[in-house]
């Protein structure tokens, strides 16, 4: 899709130019950019964007690792990810002329959590934690575990990259399909405050939480709280939690420190946030929330990628004119070619109308966020399932 084809919509061209262009190739070329985080609502093509970006960067000479969360099967196959083993695997079949490399991995949340436990607790304690029912529930279903473990993995990859002289120089992270895109940012803190929380401390050591001065007044409260909790949840639940917390206690500092560290890593200059959206109302609204949040937290935002923009190839013809001519052709009762021509015109009118609506939605975003660079990526007419189609997405990301 080139600019000249949009002559039927001069107003849109003007508005589109108002939003600064997101320079993906500039970002890839900048060696100072070491981490790229792709975030946005579910179903907008985050994983595809992350993978396409990784391929393009590798072919431009970067040593890249892509951390995906939940790729479509065909996309996983395109990256050579046949198994979910929580370790980066080299991707083959791309152009290595520029000296780049490409590894990819899928996140296994439970396994990552287990690894953290094994790495930070002594063997006996680790075993105790891994067997605890509360731990098992938290590690596989705690709201936010996936986000936290994505962060944790990112931290690990970064540490590995920094310690090897020929290690990765660019880490691209896809974010989990959260309830809200913001969960990703909040997860480390939430898990941190969970482990640091007053309630957990109360459960693990009631006396500590109440403090010496307030033993009498507070002690009563503590008793009331734990007896209520016991009544509601059953004694076993509480004792499981207590065992879990006590066991985690040794690695406590580790957890918090690491969460803080990863958060700091994300707010550094070497990190780049890419917000990904589809040209739909809800996805762009989510993108707005995310952009506002990143800006409020002073996180390094690179810009917005709007995927799946409708493609208009015959831009010189307006929808209303196309429909009028289609009607005339149909009325004329002409040969099959007239019918075909009318069909093409109706199709064209529909294609343009959808594309216009999508552009309007993207422009609405840019009007309320005039400083955020944007790139619009035209829809592919096939699913992405090999490196060639990923490369095509990469070309589109880099813009016309």
């Amino acid at each position, binding site marked *: 899709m080139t600019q000249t084809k949009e002559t039927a919509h001069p107003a849109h061209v003007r508005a589109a130019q108002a939003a600064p262009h997101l320079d993906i190739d500039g970002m890839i070329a900048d060696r100072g950019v070491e981490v790229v985080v792709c975030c946005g609502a579910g*179903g907008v093509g985050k994983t595809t964007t992350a993978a396409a970006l990784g391929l393009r960067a590798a072919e431009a000479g970067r040593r890249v690792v892509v951390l995906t969360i939940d790729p*479509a099967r065909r996309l996983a196959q395109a990256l050579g990810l046949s198994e979910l083993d929580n370790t980066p695997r080299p991707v083959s079949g791309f152009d290595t002329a520029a000296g780049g490399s490409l590894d990819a991995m899928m996140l296994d949340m439970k396994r990552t959590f287990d690894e953290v436990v094994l790495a930070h607790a002594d063997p006996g304690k680790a075993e105790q934690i891994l067997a605890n029912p509360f731990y098992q529930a938290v590690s596989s279903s705690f709201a936010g575990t996936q986000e936290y473990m994505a962060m944790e993995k990112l931290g690990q990859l970064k540490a590995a990259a920094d310690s090897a002289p020929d290690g990765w120089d660019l880490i691209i992270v896809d974010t989990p399909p959260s*309830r809200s895109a913001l969960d990703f940012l909040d997860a480390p803190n939430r898990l941190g405050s969970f482990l640091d929380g007053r309630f957990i401390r109360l459960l693990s050591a009631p006396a500590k939480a109440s403090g010496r001065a307030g033993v009498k007044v507070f002690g009563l409260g503590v008793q009331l709280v734990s007896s209520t909790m016991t*009544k509601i949840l059953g004694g076993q639940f509480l004792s*499981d939690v207590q065992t879990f917390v006590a066991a985690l206690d040794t690695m406590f500092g580790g957890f918090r420190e690491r969460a803080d560290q990863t958060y700091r890593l994300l707010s550094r200059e070497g990190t780049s946030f890419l917000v990904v959206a589809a040209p739909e109302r809800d996805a762009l609204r989510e993108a707005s929330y995310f952009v506002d949040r990143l800006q409020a937290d002073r996180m390094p935002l690179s810009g917005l990628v709007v995927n799946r923009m409708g493609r208009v190839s015959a831009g010189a013809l307006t929808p209303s004119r196309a429909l009028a001519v289609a009607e005339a052709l149909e009325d004329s009762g002409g040969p099959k070619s*007239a019918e*075909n021509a009318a069909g093409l015109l109706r199709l064209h009118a*529909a294609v343009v109308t959808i594309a216009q609506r999508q552009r309007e939605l993207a422009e609405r975003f840019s009007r309320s966020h005039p400083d955020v660079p944007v790139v619009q990526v035209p829809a592919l007419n096939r699913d992405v399932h090999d490196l060639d189609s990923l490369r095509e997405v990469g070309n589109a990301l880099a813009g016309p």
Partner: protein
Amino acid sequence: MSDARAIDAADWQRARLHVVTGKGGTGKTTVASALALALASATDSPKRVLLAEVEGRQGLSQTFDVPPLGTEETRIARTKPGGEIVGLSVDAKAALLEYLQLFYKLGRAGKLLEKFGAIDFATTIAPGVRDVLVIGKLYEANRRRKDGRHRGASPAAYDAIVMDAPPTGRIGRFLSVNSEVADLARVGPIHSQAESITDLLESEQTLVHIVTLLEEMPVQETIEAIRELRAKDLRVGIVFVNMVRDPLLDDVALEQARNGRLHKASISGQLADAGVKASPELVDGLLQEAYDHAHRVDLESEQLALLEETGLPLVLLPALPEGVDSGSVRELADILLDELEEVGLTR
């Protein structure tokens, strides 16, 4: 694997709790809203339908053009034969406090629990507890009678409940979390609450519907969700295929477009006769659009075939060209009613 049979009209009649899931971006909220409207206006007797969202996204308030929903059940729409839709945004924290009040008359202890972070702990962090509370709220609404009590001869407060549920990626865990909690909390009221909820979810009163688009990822997730839900003894009801667009070319033209065999010169001639300046670029552009369209149609029919293999009733809903609002969602509800008849679930 439990009952893998596709539902029939009798199953549809018996269902009271409709859980609507789907991959993010497939239009779950829109379909849940249309389904609620369809259920409310399904027959001549007035129906009262509770439409609940559970993730605090306020999608319902946007769909129905009403102020943001709170934890109070509020009427958000009326339907023709005197039916109504009552909206609710279920909040775990409010549900827990309400629950504690109801069963324990807590008073001071409730405040203390809050102060110690126990409420936050239970609703945001303790695995599954949040989900038990959220589903528990709907469990309660399902049992409630018109007189506000939970037993007795008074008719049910709601004729049906539609839940705008979490997406397919989390739905299995969300709905089975009750059994997860039942294992964690081995005794006590949360345990028995979780058990009763699981009974309801696994009963024939509950159907889980999945919303998808004719695209690879949503269809793949739909098929995986069907397998997962059935393995957890949950009944899968309808697969809603959303945002379906009719092909704009007939089969012959599509075939020609696909193979690049649409006759350029004659199309160009027709356009010129109709008064369009048919430059080569314009004609090439139109043919390119036809080619793109043919490929999309192919992809979509490939995905539709995969869905048909599931043997489940498929309800096709059209794309709303002007987007979703309180008017277009009613149009969708009318189409949905016709489609339910079409697939043999209603008469």
